[in-house]
């Protein structure tokens, strides 16, 4: 079992140990305690398991971490500056970019979001920014409530166990842990029927490393309800279904790996539960986690599937690789202690981008597996809202900011110019300006372009198993079916 620690080295990479960024100051009004520059990172992502650094303190852990080969992968400073200014421009004209240059956004997410703007970008991509604006004061309201004791008890026991070597979470009862508590508790109040699932804590912790508690809360809400609906619900049906979907996709991606896992009777749930439920935050080296999340926020769950498939393919995808793990246990051991080479940022990201697994395929597979599930298990016990595949789908499903400022029309004109009376002067046809509201400013522009028009621009983004309507219809706040 010593092999499982082999990957400790590359995991131990400073989070955002890049040179200080002047952009951080001017562009992140939302940025709270979690600054842009963070040395030490989530080195502890898996340190709990590594053990050796335990008790030796943060300083010792850091000295071990800093002289890392990862430095080679760092983006040159000039490039970083350029990216920052490009991202600033995008964020300041977000709706326009989203409507017209979504592919460019996707490309830039694939290249990696500059660390100084990452937290902000995630909020825009996930639609959590819109969500927050629609629910001003909601988080504070939840924050003041005491919460259900049965959840508080479990949450409290987990607080000190999330990224314990990250400077934010290192001290018991410190700011990081307090905020983590607030975010997780607020979620149990926001969705009392869901409560708290232990796999939500690492997700919330990663978010808190990039944004203040209120923003992290809404981002968590988006992940739980739009990106990975049902993952954390009672019964955990959604994750089990995705395990089957993953396995079925593996058949196409790597028949060798598929055959081996079938032969060894290794159920996907054994290796993919933590991968998927924690969005690889406890699996990959830190720099890879961030790159994967950048793409995940933009492109949705497809990225999670692809990462899983790439890892499986490169671990078990050739007879040569299988030589040393012929048994069931050996195979699982191998999957648990993945080779650092295949988790390395540049390699992994490239492989993920190139892997031809589409939303359409995932949705098709979803239907097939759902049917099988019904045959063997009966109806799903937890109804979840439909999965939205990334920023584009969310921005189309989620109403623009102005929704917060006006009543939602009960009838929505399906196509043509947006139904906003004062927007006549707008130059773009499929985009309306917001109602000159106080919320005007970056990102406050309307984004209510009809879905039909968008599908013409991006025909690939609508392969949902539900009807098109659910993509472009307004979300009725609580879309639980």
């Amino acid at each position, binding site marked *: *079992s*010593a092999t499982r620690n082999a990957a400790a080295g590359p995991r131990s990479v400073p989070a955002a140990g890049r040179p200080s960024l002047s952009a951080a100051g001017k562009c992140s009004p939302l940025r709270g305690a979690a600054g842009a520059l963070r040395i030490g990172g989530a080195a502890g992502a*898996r*340190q*709990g*398991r*590594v*053990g*050796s650094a*335990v*008790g030796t303190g943060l300083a010792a852990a850091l000295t071990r971490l800093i002289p890392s080969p990862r430095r080679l992968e760092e983006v040159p400073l000039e490039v970083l500056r350029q990216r920052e200014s490009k991202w600033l421009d995008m964020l300041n004209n977000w709706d326009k970019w989203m409507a017209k240059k979504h592919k460019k956004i996707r490309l830039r997410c694939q290249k990696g979001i500059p660390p100084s703007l990452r937290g902000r970008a995630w909020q825009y991509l996930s639609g959590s920014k819109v969500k927050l604006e629609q629910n001003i004061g909601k988080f504070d309201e939840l924050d003041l409530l005491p919460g259900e004791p049965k959840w508080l008890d*479990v949450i409290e*026991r*987990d607080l*000190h*166990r*999330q990224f*314990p070597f990250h400077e934010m979470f290192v001290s018991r009862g410190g700011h990081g842990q307090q905020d983590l508590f607030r975010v997780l508790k607020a979620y149990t109040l926001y969705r009392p029927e869901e409560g708290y*699932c*232990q*796999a939500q*804590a*690492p997700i919330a912790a990663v978010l808190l490393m990039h944004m203040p508690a209120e923003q992290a809360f809404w981002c968590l809400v988006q992940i739980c309800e739009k990106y990975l609906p049902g993952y*954390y619900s*009672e*019964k*955990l*049906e959604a*994750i*089990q279904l995705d395990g089957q979907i993953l396995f079925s996709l593996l058949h196409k991606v790597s028949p060798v790996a598929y055959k081996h896992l079938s032969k060894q009777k290794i*159920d996907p*749930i*054994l290796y993919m*539960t*933590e991968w998927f*439920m*924690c969005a690889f935050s*406890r699996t990959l080296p830190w720099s890879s986690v961030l790159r994967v999340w950048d793409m995940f926020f933009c492109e949705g769950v497809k990225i999670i599937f692809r990462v899983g498939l790439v890892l499986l393919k490169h671990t078990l995808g050739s007879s040569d690789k299988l030589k040393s793990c012929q048994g069931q*246990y050996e195979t*699982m*051991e191998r999957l*648990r202690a993945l080779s650092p080479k295949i988790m390395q940022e540049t390699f992994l990201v490239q492989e993920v981008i190139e892997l031809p697994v589409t939303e359409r395929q995932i949705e098709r597979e979803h239907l097939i597996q759902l049917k099988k599930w019904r045959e063997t298990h009966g109806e799903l016990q937890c109804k979840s809202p439909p999965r939205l595949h990334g920023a584009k789908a969310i921005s189309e499903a989620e109403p623009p900011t102005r929704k917060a400022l006006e009543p939602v029309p009960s009838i929505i004109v399906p196509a043509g110019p947006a139904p906003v009376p004062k927007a006549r002067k707008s130059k773009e046809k499929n985009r309306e300006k917001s109602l000159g509201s106080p919320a005007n400013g970056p990102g406050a522009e309307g984004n209510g372009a009809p879905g039909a028009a968008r599908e013409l621009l991006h025909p690939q983004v609508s392969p949902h198993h539900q009807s098109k309507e659910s993509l472009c219809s307004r979300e009725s706040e609580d879309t639980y079916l």
Partner: protein
Amino acid sequence: MEAIWLYQFRLIVIGDSTVGKSCLIRRFTEGRFAQISDPTVGVDFFSRLVEIEPGKRIKLQIWDTAGQERFRSITRAYYRNSVGGLLLFDITNRRSFQNVHEWLEETKVHVQPYQIVFVLVGHKCDLDTQRQVTRHEAEKLAAAYGMKYIETSARDAINVEKAFTDLTRDIYELVKRGEISIQEGWEGVKSGFVPNVVHSSEEVVKSDRRCLC
């Protein structure tokens, strides 16, 4: 390469969240104690060889499970293929003790027609000053369910070896007596590679090598 082993036993470790399941297993398999360990998400697994008699080694496959109730829909699928189990509670957490009954019921339902040889483990016994469950009541409960009871501490390495090896010996005895047998399609007990070792129940008296740590 793998060392030679006589049998492979699959054990499962269950109990409430934060009673110390992963820490106990890691102490046993890796010989160290992690002050902090991530909450287990889903199922995890470990392995170690145990020598129950000189030259007789048993390979243990130890399955760690998430303690949070929500994960039971996933973890319960792994009860069935286990021959033995450690049911943990935290001696400083009364509720985890009260839930022992529920855990047993839960496994019973999902393990049929097989059965799991359980040992009840009162964990974190180094924290004696914060104790909320007396040894006496734990022993009584264990006896009522026909289990052995042992108190362990992963932090101070108290009885960790003993908890696992005693359970392994008990299962081994049952296997030897034919009360538990290897079955096709069941992973609980598997026969290993045994070159030149004649399996005999008349083997010398059990070694007294119990590690007291």
